[in-house]
Each structure stands twice: as C-alpha cells, then as structure tokens.
C-alpha cells in the first residue's frame, strides 16, 4: 500500500509539473461540451428543438382566409422562420409568387416552401391540397418541417374547408333552400340569444363567416388551445368549443418536465463517457512510455510489485477522469443551464464508477496491445463503436434489434443510462444502484482482473 501511495504521489507530481497537461485536462472537457452543447440544445430556453430555426417560405395563393391561417400558425412555431417574400437590401418585401417561391429553392435561398394553391380545394367531395416544395438535403430538417406543416394544416382544416362546405351546401340544397336555411339560422340565433347588441344577418350564416365569428381574429387554434377547463361563458364560447373539442391531447409528461435543457440533458452522459474513454485510454498508453524508459526494470528491482504499479496508474487515471467528467458537467451547467447541482452527489458517484470502468477498459487495451499506437488505434475503433451502439449519438430505439442487443453489452450503455437516470429522471442512489451502478462496478472489477492477469503474463513488464 505504501508503494502504491508513493507511486501515486509520483503520478500527481508529474502531472502537476506539467502546466500544459493541467490546462488541457480541464480545458478540453470545457471546449467539448461547448461544442456539443451548441450542436444540441443551444442555450437551454427552447424546449428541445433544433438549435437554429429552419427557414420555410410560405405563400397563400388562394387568397382564402384559411390559407392565411395555416401560414400564421406556421409562423407561430418556434422552430421555423417563415418568409413571405424576398426582401431586398432596402428592406422592401417582394411577396412570393407561385413561380418565384419555387425558384427560391432552385437558387438555394431556402430549402422548404409551403404553398396553399389557388385551387387548394378538391374538385369533388371534401378535401384540401397543400404544396410542399423541398430540397431535403437534411433528413432531420425535412422530417421536422414536414411534421410542422401537417400539424398547421390539420389545425386549420375547418377554416381551409369552410368555402368548400358552403359551396357544397349551396350545391346540394340549392341556392333558394340555402338562403332559407341561413335566414332561419340567423333568426334562431337572434331570438335565442335575445340581446339587442347581438344581431346577425343571414349572410353571416355561411360556414366560413360563422367560423370567423366564433374564432375571432386572435383566438389561435393550435395544440394548446384546448383550454376548456373554465365554464363556457356563453354560447359564443360554447360554439367555439365545438371545434376546439374536436381533438384535445392532454399531455402528461412523467419525467423531465422541469428539465431546462432536455436535449443536452439526455445526451450529456454519452459525451461524458466517450470523453472518459478517450482520456483514460490515452493515459493507459502512457504505460508504454514508462516501459520504453526502462522504468519498470528499476521499479521491479525494488520491493515493488506489478500490481502496485497497476493500482497507482488505476487510481491516478480514475481520479483524473472524475475531475474531467465533473468539469464537463459543471461547464454544461454554466454554459447550457444543465441542472447538475440538484443531483450532484449521485452524479459524482456515477462519475467515479464510470471513470473507474473506463480506466480499467484503457488498461485492458494497453495490456493486450504491444505498442501505444496499437492501443490508441484499437481504442479509437472500440470507443467509437461502443458509443455509437450504446445510444450516445442516436437513441438506441432507432437501431436494429441486433445492434441494440450488442449495445447493451457495452459499459457505455450502462453509463449513459445511469447518467440519464440521475439527470433526467432525478433518480437517487437506491434506485440507480441496481442494475446500473452495479453493472458499472462489475465492469471495473472484471476489466481490472483481466488487465492484472495480462500484465502478469504479458509483455508489458518484461
């Protein structure tokens, strides 16, 4: 034990004597999380959308209010930046035309355009046709815009369909019948509401006009409009609720509701692990340096055992890994508002266990390889493979079942799940202990065992 401490002290002395190494040790996690954080999740106030807004050109060629409503609801989306026309240098806006809006994509000014065409209504029956023009050079962006356009169209479907419903009524009931119906309806409304201030004309009794009256100008129909908890404060509101109630999705998010930067919170554990693996593999490769210098020849001529050298390396690399991982998390707290502090003790514990397992991984690599270059090369391959298959880059659920199954064998998977459990679900020690933390401990033990055995019989100390 005294030998281990003496060797450990030497490691710290060497480390502290190298100002550049110290700087890098703490700067690298900072820079990494700065870069990764900006890729995903941005500054933390948007709720998990893509960092920058996607530009979408929009044109209502029909002139119908329903078409404007669709574009307005696209404009209300946080993730989209909606253009209505080409703006010139002096700030004047030239509205799109059906030709120019397409040309904008050809000229690569934007990648997406939504057009409500002049003839957007189906010729027969009820239906609408919206044009979505795109240059889908980015798969994820396309999916996002597509989804948002569909959402806007569905939300505005009643308004979009209003002219068609009125035409359909006139065509099926005949003009005379329709007039009688609208007169009767107006009379009925005026009588039943029985308020001199409320008077409607029969020509306000078209479906489109009714919708306008009901919805008003400033009531947005969108996903969150189902705010019907209060009493219906009158028939006008009651009518509005007819449409609102058509589809209400009540969201009940069990976990992560208060998480300020969900995207990065979900991902950061993966970055931390990938970083730990690279860092600890690099430091394990330093064993070769000492071997080259003939240091082991001297150390082992002293009352020092191979295991003493291994333990001192293990303790040093693990402690450095913990410091670096914590730097990464603390940096993410300052830069991206990741809530690190309310889970800090358990986070430290996971960092210790993850750093330990990663260090052991690096040492096994060094023990199995015969040169530092081999260690780095094979290490890089394994680390990238493991992190990719463990849900560090893309959710595990998106991968083929075989890959998912393989991914679950890697220590990265268990590390990521543990970090997510702490930061996302806010789980504590008891909930995380089994199986996540236990698996990390098991990885450390098994890998260290392999490393110790390989170092005993292998070439590192010969």
């Amino acid at each position, binding site marked *: 034990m005294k030998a281990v401490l003496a060797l450990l002290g*030497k490691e710290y002395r060497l480390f502290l004597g190298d100002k550049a190494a110290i700087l890098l040790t703490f700067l690298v996690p900072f820079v990494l999380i700065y870069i990764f954080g900006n890729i995903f999740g941005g500054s933390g106030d948007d709720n998990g959308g893509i960092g920058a807004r996607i530009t979408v050109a929009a044109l209502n060629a029909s002139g119908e209010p329903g078409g404007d409503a669709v574009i307005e609801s696209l404009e209300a989306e946080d993730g989209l930046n909606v253009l209505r026309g080409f703006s010139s240098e002096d700030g004047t806006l030239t509205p799109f035309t059906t030709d120019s809006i397409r040309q904008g994509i050809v000229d690569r000014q934007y990648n997406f355009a939504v057009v409500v065409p002049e003839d957007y209504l189906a010729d027969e029956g009820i239906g609408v046709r919206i044009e979505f023009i795109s240059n889908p050079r980015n798969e994820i962006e396309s999916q996002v815009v597509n989804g948002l356009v569909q959402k806007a169209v569905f939300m505005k479907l009643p308004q979009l369909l209003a002219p068609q419903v009125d035409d359909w009524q006139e065509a099926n009931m005949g003009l005379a019948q329709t007039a009688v119906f609208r007169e009767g309806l107006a009379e009925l409304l005026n009588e039943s509401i029985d308020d001199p201030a409320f008077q409607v004309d029969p020509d306000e009794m078209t479906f489109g006009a009714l919708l306008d009256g009901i919805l008003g100008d400033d009531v947005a129909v969108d996903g969150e409009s189902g705010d019907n908890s209060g009493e219906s404060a009158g028939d006008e509101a009651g009518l509005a609720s007819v449409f609102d109630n058509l589809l209400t999705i009540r969201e009940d998010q069990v976990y992560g509701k208060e998480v300020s930067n969900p995207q990065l919170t979900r991902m950061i554990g993966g970055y931390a692990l990938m970083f730990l693996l690279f860092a600890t593999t690099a430091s394990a490769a330093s064993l070769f340096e000492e071997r080259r210098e003939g240091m082991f020849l001297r150390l*082992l001529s002293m*009352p020092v055992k191979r295991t003493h050298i291994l333990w001192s390396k293990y303790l040093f690399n693990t402690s450095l890994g913990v410091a670096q991982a914590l730097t990464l998390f603390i940096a993410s707290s300052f830069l991206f508002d990741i809530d690190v502090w309310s889970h800090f003790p358990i986070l430290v514990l996971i960092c210790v266990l993850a750093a330990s397992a990663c260090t052991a991984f690096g040492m096994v690599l060094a023990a199995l390889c015969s040169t530092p270059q081999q260690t780095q090369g094979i290490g890089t391959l394994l680390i990238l493979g493991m992190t990719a298959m463990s849900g560090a880059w893309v959710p595990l659920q998106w991968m083929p079942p075989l890959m998912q199954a393989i991914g679950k064998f890697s220590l990265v998977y268990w590390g990521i799940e543990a970090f997510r459990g702490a930061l996302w679900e806010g789980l504590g020690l008891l909930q995380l202990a089994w199986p996540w933390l236990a698996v990390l401990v098991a990885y450390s033990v098994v890998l260290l065992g392999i490393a110790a055995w390989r170092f005993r019989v292998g070439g590192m*100390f010969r």
Partner: protein
Amino acid sequence: MTDTALAATGLRKSFGDTVALDGLDLAVPKGAFFGLLGPNGAGKSTFMSLVTGFQDADDGQLLLFGEVLDPADTAQKLRIGFAPQHIALYKELSAEANLVLFGRLYGLSGRGLSKRVDAVLETARLTDRRGDRVKTFSGGMMRRLNIAAALLHEPELLLCDEPTVGVDPQSRNAIFETLLELKARGMTVIYSTHYMEEAERLCDRVAIIDHGRILAEGDIDGLLDGLPAVNAVRVRGSELEEATVAALSQFGEVTAGERVHTLAPGEGFRLSRFHAWAEGEGLEPRDVIVERPTLEHLFLQLTGRELRE
C-alpha cells in the same frame, strides 16, 4: 554463512527463438568487484534482470547470499541495488524528487530518507543540482544519478549494467571513484561492460560471457596467465634487410607493414632469445616493441572478431 554473494547454476532464458542465457554458471565472491564482460547481445542484461526478479528464468538456480532467490521476497530485494542499462529516472522530476520516490519504494521515510538522499547526492556529486529537473542534466550526470538511486538503501550487492555508456571522461572517472569507494566499504559489485580497459582498471574478477554462456572466469592476472606471455613483437624500421626479415620469421609469423613488421610469436617463443638475436642483427632496442597480452586479446580470442549487432 557463505562467501558467495551470488551464485548461478545452469541459468536458462529464451525469448521466443532467441536463447539469451544458455546454461550460465557463475559465482561472485562477497566483496568482489566482478566484471561481466561480453559483446552486445551476450546476455549480460538478461542475467541482471533475472537477479532483480524482472524476468523469471526458464531453468537453473540463483542463490543470493546462499538463499534461493525469490522475486517476491522483499528482504532479498533490499540487499540488491540495481542501476539499469538505460537511464531509468523520471526526467520531468528533480533529482531529489526521484531519489525521494525511490527511497520511499525502498521503505525509507522521514529523517532516515532525507539523510540517505543527501548521502547519495553527495556520492553522485550532484548536491548542488538536487532541485533541478533531470532532463536538464548531462548524460554523465544522469548516469551518476542512475547509480545513486540504486544506493539509497545501502545494498550489499550492486548491479551496474554498462554504467559508462555515453559518458564523458570526467563523469566516467567520477563513476569509477564512486564504485571503488563502495567496494572499499565492502560492497559486492557486478559490473557489466564491453570496455576491457574499464574492467582491467576496476575489476578483481571477471567473467567473459557470450551467447549466454560463460567462456572464462577468474581474476584478471590468472586469466592472462593462460595466454602466451608475449602477444606480439613489433620491429620498427622501414629499411629492414631482406635477410633480417627472413631471419625474423624463425620466431613466428611475420606481417610486413610500411614502417613496422609485426611478429606473432610462434610455438616455444622465448623473449630472451629474441632479444639476443635482435642485438646481433644490430637492431636498436627502442625499435623493438614487445606487446603483452591484455584482457582485450583474451576477449577477442574467446568471442571472435565478427561484428555484433
């Protein structure tokens, strides 16, 4: 009690197909300054790595002060000091920090440790550079520190593996003085080298090793006694008469050079007879140079002249 510090019998060690030690037998008496002489690749370092427990022998036995050597035995390790062939120091640390670390590993601490650090720094003549990083040292200073680190725990047996490689003459002398001082204090030293003049100057016993075997072992005088008393005779003079040269060949094989004729003495060569003859031929005494055999001659005779590695 035994008078042998280290005894090896039938030591074997191979690395794959390379046989590094091929049944090596060796006995190093206590208090000896023992030279292990051999060309590159002879097995000197391998032998030392078996003694220090870095490698395990494939076969054979090593006795340290009469006890079977056990690499796991801490007490035994404390009796051995080892200065490796390559400078094994943390170059980013100061001389003192290196010595403090190694001292701790030898189980020293507190005042005992700092006294020993001071002492070996003095021995290595590095007291005034103790706080400097080793990487700022010259080759000779590193060598001296490399040996000093092996002396911290006052071992009874010191192994020095080629300690003067890449060292300036001043440092070499300092190293020699240090080692002779240690020997005077009763330490047993095993010193590996391929510089014969070093061995002649320092060692009272040598073993010549090649291909993992001991080819000759004994005190230097005894080993040289086994050689002819005269190694070669050189006769100076560019205008030796042909008859003289012909007469010269009665004593052995003559090689003619531009200014010098070299005579390799033949069977039954007697120096007195040669001198008598030379006087008769009218050769000046200062033109006749008699070369005595050296360790180098023995070494080359035993290990051959072909190039190594």
